[in-house]
């Protein structure tokens, strides 16, 4: 569809409608603008959509399904490494991928159960933590989801997919973390990762919240200051006599 210039006004209007571009009357001053928009729309239509367009409401579930369908076969073997498919979410049953540790690690929906490798690698943030990030091999696992099964060595530092930060820095301890609560739908912030009892050893040893100065120091400083002020106050010379002396 080249040579938009040569098309008649009506044809341009039809094309605009086809691409869903809202437009006003087509006159000589507005025509160049609409031609430009059509060109952009046509170029965009050719390129397969790899990432969601910003102005379209993007629901993860939709995307997931799409990608899910494509890689149906669980990556048993190496998997389509480097497929380049944007792996949105590892929903698919990883359960089989459990080869080794069968820790009942049910977190966030897919029952990952395996990943429990222990080596407390500071699990900074793998959302789908399927990758059992902990073996040594740090494969720079930038994004291929499918192969988790073997990939558990992946160093999922590069895993940038922001979703729920499960661990907020907690190293992955090997014990049955039962994230029951998280397994239900919410991907939203499983931050209450702290399971009260759980023997989570290092609970937020690293930044629990984003404080620069630890809380106890702040309290301490405050107390010192209060004590100091009190001390000054009590040692002030108090004027016994009433301020309202009559001048006689």
């Amino acid at each position, binding site marked *: 569809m080249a040579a938009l210039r040569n098309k008649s006004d009506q044809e341009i209007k039809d094309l605009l409608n086809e691409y869903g571009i*809202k*437009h*006003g009357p087509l006159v000589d001053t507005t025509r*160049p*603008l609409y031609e*430009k928009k059509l060109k952009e729309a046509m170029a965009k239509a050719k390129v397969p959509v790899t990432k969601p367009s910003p102005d379209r409401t993007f629901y993860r579930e939709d995307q997931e399904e799409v990608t899910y369908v494509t890689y149906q076969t669980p990556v048993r073997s190496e998997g389509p490494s480097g497929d380049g498919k944007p792996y949105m979410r590892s929903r698919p049953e990883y359960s089989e991928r459990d080869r080794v540790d069968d820790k009942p690690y049910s977190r966030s929906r897919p029952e990952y159960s395996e990943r429990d490798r222990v080596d407390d690698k500071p699990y900074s943030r793998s959302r789908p933590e399927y990758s059992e990030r902990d073996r040594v091999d740090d494969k720079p696992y930038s994004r291929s989801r499918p192969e988790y099964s073997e990939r558990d060595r992946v160093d999922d530092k590069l895993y940038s997919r922001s979703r729920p930060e499960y661990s907020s820095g907690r190293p992955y301890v090997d014990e049955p973390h039962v994230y029951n609560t998280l397994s239900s739908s919410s991907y939203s912030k499983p931050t209450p990762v702290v399971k009260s009892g759980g023997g989570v050893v290092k609970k937020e040893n690293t930044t629990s919240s984003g404080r620069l100065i630890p809380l106890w120091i702040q309290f301490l400083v405050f107390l010192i200051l209060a004590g100091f002020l009190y001390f000054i106050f009590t040692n002030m010379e108090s004027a016994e006599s009433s301020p309202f002396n009559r001048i006689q």
Partner: protein
Amino acid sequence: MSTTSQKHRDFVAEPMGDKPVTALSGIGEVLGKKLEEQGFDRAFVVLGQYLLLRKDGELFTEWLKDTSGANTRNATSCSQCLREWCDAFL
């Protein structure tokens, strides 16, 4: 209320009549000259273009950038100025 310039406030305060195109907010000397070369020598002609584009701010901004080489800030400012004028007087 977003911060508006004095020029904007002046323009929106009264019917535009025959004001030159440089009276529009965001349009200065340079842009004004370019628009005049294209035939838009008065503010109401630019208003006409805005109306032709169905008062769509984004389309108008894009058009202004293409036609006069305005940057995004100026084009948006002009678009907003016209929109408010239309809200008041159209």
